[in-house]
């Protein structure tokens, strides 16, 4: 017992330091978790969380019967998976190409330029995209017009919209990925390349037998970390670029929750959708984390 109080005396400053963070996390992360109850209620705003009647799983049944739900899940996963693939292939290729460049300043300038959009918000980038892609005055359609292509309404066409999302996401983020992969490349032992050269391997063979295997751990790591994001297809981006005509190909879980929950005030229903998403994400993140730990020996703390 005396050992315990002595221990506490020694440790109390540490507890005190954690206090502000704990209070904030309690209020803004754990209290909202209590609100998950709403998913099982017919939530009535003026009766509140503890006065509204419970209706069991009815919100979830409603969700399963919602006519567009299959499409919404498909869009979410389709856009997210394409983004993950493009987000691996493009930065890896560019990192390898840049690494072949011998001129240091070219490399650095290129990095600075491509990394920039990562720091701008989707609001600003969307403003730029809307202007550039506009069918009447956008520069892209003007350029295409020189080749005799009729104006395309990229943001208003269901067949184009998902691909525009993927391409513009690559535009924003590939600079960031390139830097991560370049950092991994600098860790490859240069004597491996010298040995390969003596054995007569050309540039291309060196890339396939030394560079790519050397990058493999970080590639696996980036991939597993992105698996947890499959249900986040990019709310900021889609919300700023979509419009009712393209809901069919653009609506993802998060945009659906926003429209149902905040705009139409169906709090119980929207919370049920959100809860389902949280649970699936939780499982995916846990699995990919275990995978990252096993394959790439990655630990977060």
């Amino acid at each position, binding site marked *: 017992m005396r050992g315990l109080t002595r221990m506490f005396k020694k440790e109390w400053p540490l507890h005190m330091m954690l206090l502000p963070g*704990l209070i904030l996390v309690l209020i803004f992360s754990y209290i909202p978790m209590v609100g998950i109850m709403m998913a099982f209620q017919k939530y009535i705003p003026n009766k509140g969380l503890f006065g509204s009647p419970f209706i069991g799983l009815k919100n979830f049944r409603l969700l399963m019967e919602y006519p567009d739900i299959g499409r919404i899940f498909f869009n979410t996963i389709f856009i997210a998976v394409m983004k993950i693939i493009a987000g691996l292939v493009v930065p890896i290729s560019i990192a390898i190409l840049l690494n072949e460049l011998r001129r240091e300043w070219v490399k650095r300038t290129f990095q600075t330029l491509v990394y*920039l959009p990562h*720091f701008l918000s989707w609001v600003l980038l969307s*403003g730029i995209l809307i*202007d550039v892609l506009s069918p009447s005055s956008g520069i892209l359609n003007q350029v295409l017009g020189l080749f005799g292509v009729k104006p395309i309404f990229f943001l208003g066409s269901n067949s184009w919209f998902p691909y525009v999302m993927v391409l513009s996401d690559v535009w924003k983020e590939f600079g960031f990925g390139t830097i991560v992969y370049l*950092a991994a490349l600098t860790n490859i032992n240069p004597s491996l390349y010298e040995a390969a050269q003596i054995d007569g391997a050309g540039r291309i063979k060196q890339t396939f037998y030394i560079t790519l295997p050397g990058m493999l751990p970080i590639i696996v790591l980036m991939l597993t970390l992105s698996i947890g994001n499959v249900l986040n297809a990019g709310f900021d981006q889609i919300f700023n670029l979509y419009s009712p005509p393209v809901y069919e190909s653009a609506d993802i879980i998060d945009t659906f929750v926003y429209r149902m929950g905040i705009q139409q005030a169906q709090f119980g229903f929207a919370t049920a959708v959100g809860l389902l998403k949280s649970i699936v994400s939780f499982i995916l993140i846990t699995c990919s984390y275990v995978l990252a730990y096993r394959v790439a020996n990655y630990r977060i703390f």
Partner: protein
Amino acid sequence: MPIIHILAISFSSGTAASAGKVLLWPVDFTTAAYDNVFGKPEYLRAFWVSVKRVAIGTTISMLITIVTAYPLSKDTSQFRLRTWYTWVFVFTILFSGGLIPMYLTVKSLGMLDTIWALVLPGAVPVFNVILLLNFYRNLPKELEESSRIDGAGHFTTLWKIYVPLSLPALATTGLFTIVGHWNSWFDGILYMNHPENYPLQTFLQTIIIKNDFRFIKAENVELMIKLSDRTSRAAQIFVAAFPILIVYPFLQRFFIKGIVMGSVKE
């Protein structure tokens, strides 16, 4: 390239821009669009809300990151509940109540339409805490031991030894926090009922992207529509991006170091 194109449009005359003559260089150079933007009290007010938000939000977040990472960087032998506490924080990344419970929590705290709704819900950046605690752990143990022998408590050790030594990590996380606050717009839409409380990005979202003038008083609508012609839109985008465009080239090396440090361990 698209960014340069928009910059060119913002400096061009309205007629040249709408005739589609502008490529990567301004046509009929004029700063009229910028005079227009800076003459608008709505835009400047939103800019000011954003500046306040960055200042308050970053200060709070950084202080919390520093004091939270320190105890969590200790071994269980020094701090027995460490693992338990760490999970309390990490769990919040893995699972959340979702949009609507969050909104109702902020609402019931009476924070709607105040700057606190923009600052406090995200005030504990758990990722940054993890990054910093990994950094603390890589500092030599002897430093801490010698300061303890000299009679320093945990607080003194933290501020006199850990904080000065972790400046690169703090610069990285601090800058990411600043950029994050400057760029976020959705919480503004969610928690602000009056457009005069909108931070800049939210303001631009409603004006430029959604062309939504519902909130604006009738006598200002005409002015707002004027604000949203093409050159003016381009200028507004640029003024909002400007703070980042300026700091970015100087801070890039920090970012790179910080990312590498955070993403690849051992």
